[in-house]
């Protein structure tokens, strides 16, 4: 059965970017306002799911050629490494550091190792969610 889903596909393309940038926003905003790695990751995943619904898994896989299992691994490594970093500085495991910087365009910005850890969380969540959905979807 061939259905005409041009409208869906067209909308999905635009909405995908909107959701994705929203996800990036709430990921970075998470330290001060609601959001964070978990939600950011889940929203990103749901954006990709939207694409999958509009097109199909194979197409999406060729558009975003990421092996999500690697993404999980990278995320775990980032999170673990961030936590372990402080050990090399003679501090207990999981000591975070932060400071404020003045960056061009952005103004006063706080840079935080916790954000790096959150990035790990983000990657793991995206990776796992997409792995699950992809493997189930691909299974005949």
């Amino acid at each position, binding site marked *: 059965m061939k259905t005409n889903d041009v409208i869906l596909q067209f909308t999905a393309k635009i909405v995908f970017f909107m959701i994705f940038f929203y996800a990036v926003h709430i990921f970075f905003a998470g330290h*001060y*306002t*609601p959001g964070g790695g*978990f939600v950011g990751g889940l929203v990103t995943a749901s954006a990709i799911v939207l694409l999958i619904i509009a097109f199909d898994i194979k197409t999406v896989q060729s558009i975003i050629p990421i092996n999500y299992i690697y993404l999980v691994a990278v995320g775990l490594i980032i999170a673990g490494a961030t936590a372990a970093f402080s050990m090399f500085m003679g501090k207990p495991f999981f000591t975070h550091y932060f400071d404020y910087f003045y960056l061009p365009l952005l103004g006063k910005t706080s840079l935080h190792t916790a954000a790096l850890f959150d990035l790990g969380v983000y990657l793991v969540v995206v990776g796992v*969610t997409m792995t*699950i959905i992809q*493997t*189930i979807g691909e299974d005949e």
Partner: protein
Amino acid sequence: MEILMAFVCGFLFMAAIYLILSRSLLRIIIGTGLLSHGAHLLILTMGSFKGSAPPVLSEGVTDYVDPVPQALILTAIVISFGVTAFFLVLAYRAYQELKTDDMTLMKGSEDHE
């Protein structure tokens, strides 16, 4: 409100357990979903709903709600998603291999040694 929510949580647990004890695999999975909803609400209820502002720092606000249960629940939500997905796949793989979703038929045979 807390009193009322206590009963709601109890009700959710009751429904969840009832489903979990059924024979059909899918019902069991749905039961675990309900169970996690109940647990999340229970944690929140036990922490009480005192406070008028969400636990996000803002000017001039001191009356925040308790952030600890929220942090616990946030972890629990994501984990329960992972678990649900795992159960789901486990269930349908079991169904594919065993051609049944009846728990009473799935139990190990008597003389496996």
